[in-house]
């Protein structure tokens, strides 16, 4: 496939690995933000191509992983109500709530449907006017334009029987939280290429300046990631701290302006709780006033008393790059993709699931 196969060639991957090796004189710790990048790193064993001096930590960019347990519990509560069709991306069904997950609701007869796009939920609402349709609108900035469009169209087309359980988060405040932590080890970031395709990368420039840290906007194929690492390491070795764009075939500095316009029309910045990390100020998107009629939390009274199950799971530390998945005592024993203790073992983009699937990643 064009724009895919040419970025997966091993000869070129080794050439980048050689360039990184020639460039490195000291130890550096980098973090890739996006779970999609983590997945590629594990799948193609990219860490094995790198010199010992380069460590990769895996960031919080997995929306399934950071959706708070309270919202999972609310989803479980709403999905079990009669006359509700609950629509979700497939990854969310097995994320553990306080007591149950969404798949359990489905097994008990709940009308739960896996959809490919939020627009599919809109269609389901139009086709089922006697039912209440709820879409679990999770995601980072990449998914925000799609969720925003579904909400915008629901209002403009007067579709009353749909609402959205919103868990939208944004990357830059999470980067600041990681850098502010006294336990932080990250010296350079690979920013998420598709988040930046939507938002551009101007908002990363003050972060790079404030913390004196290189940030390289990076794609998802093996050559993209290796070039991102090369650019980041080169900056560190030369004592520079800038924002660079490796993924320029998709990312423009200003991002996708029509998409940003709809996001701003529908959403406003709100504080959000991140599972495993805690509340981060100004780190999420919530519905603006004209659209709050589509907020499932308003439409359905759902007082839930959520509590994280007490387990050995260290997914919070994994999401912050403080621990690696295979440093967890439960990893591969009491916690597996078939029986996950934490959300990072559920999503294919969760670091624990990626490590479990591609065991060759070294500790």
């Amino acid at each position: 496939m064009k724009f895919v196969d040419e970025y997966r060639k091993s000869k070129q991957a080794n050439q980048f690995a050689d360039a990184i090796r020639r460039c490195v004189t000291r130890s550096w710790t980098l973090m890739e933000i996006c779970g999609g990048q983590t997945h590629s790193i594990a799948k193609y064993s990219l860490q094995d191509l790198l010199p010992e001096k380069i460590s990769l930590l895996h960031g919080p960019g997995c929306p399934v992983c950071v959706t708070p347990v309270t919202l999972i519990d609310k989803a479980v509560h709403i999905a079990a109500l009669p006359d509700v069709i609950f629509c979700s991306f497939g990854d969310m069904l097995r994320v553990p709530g306080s007591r149950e997950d969404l798949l359990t609701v489905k097994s008990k007869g709940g009308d739960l449907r896996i959809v490919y796009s939020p627009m599919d939920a809109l269609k389901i609402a139009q086709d089922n006017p006697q039912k209440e349709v709820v879409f679990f609108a999770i995601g980072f900035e990449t998914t925000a334009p799609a969720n925003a469009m579904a909400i915008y169209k629901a209002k403009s087309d007067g579709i009353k029987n749909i609402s959205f359980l919103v868990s939208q988060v944004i990357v830059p405040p999470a980067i600041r939280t990681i850098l502010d932590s006294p336990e932080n080890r990250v010296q350079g970031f690979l920013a998420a290429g598709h988040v930046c395709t939507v938002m551009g990368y101007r908002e990363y420039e003050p972060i790079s300046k404030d913390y004196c840290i290189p940030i390289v906007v990076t794609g998802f194929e093996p050559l993209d990631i290796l070039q991102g690492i090369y650019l980041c390491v080169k900056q560190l070795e030369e004592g520079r701290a800038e924002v660079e764009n490796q993924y320029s075939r998709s990312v423009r500095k200003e991002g996708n302006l029509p998409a940003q316009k709809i996001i701003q029309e529908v959403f406003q910045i709100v504080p959000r709780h991140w599972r495993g990390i805690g509340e981060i100020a100004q780190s999420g998107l919530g519905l603006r006033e004209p659209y709050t009629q589509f907020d499932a939390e308003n439409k359905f009274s759902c007082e839930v008393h959520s509590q994280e199950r007490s387990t050995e799971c260290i997914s919070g530390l994994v999401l912050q790059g403080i621990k690696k998945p295979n440093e967890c005592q439960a990893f591969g024993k009491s916690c597996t993709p078939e029986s996950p203790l934490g959300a990072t073992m559920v999503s294919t983009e969760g670091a624990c699931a990626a490590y479990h699937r591609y065991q060759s990643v070294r500790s």
Partner: protein
Amino acid sequence: MCLAVPGKITSISADDPLMRTGQVSFGGIFKEVNLAYVPEAKINDYVITHVGFAISVLNEEEAHRVFDTLNQLNALDEPENPTP
């Protein structure tokens, strides 16, 4: 979640600009994709698609930059040509 894949636009139907859609081929598998966020997209362009929405048109020229960088790195690494 932020998984987004490149595909080639094979046809476009445009009525409402917010619902401008196209048939996109992902290695031979066709899907209908919303093109509202890529008003510049034309037939035969490659778009990055996420949950049913195209979020960018891939830039062919920029796509070569990875290989240009590699060529430069390799040129630096090769011994200089002997002068005649």
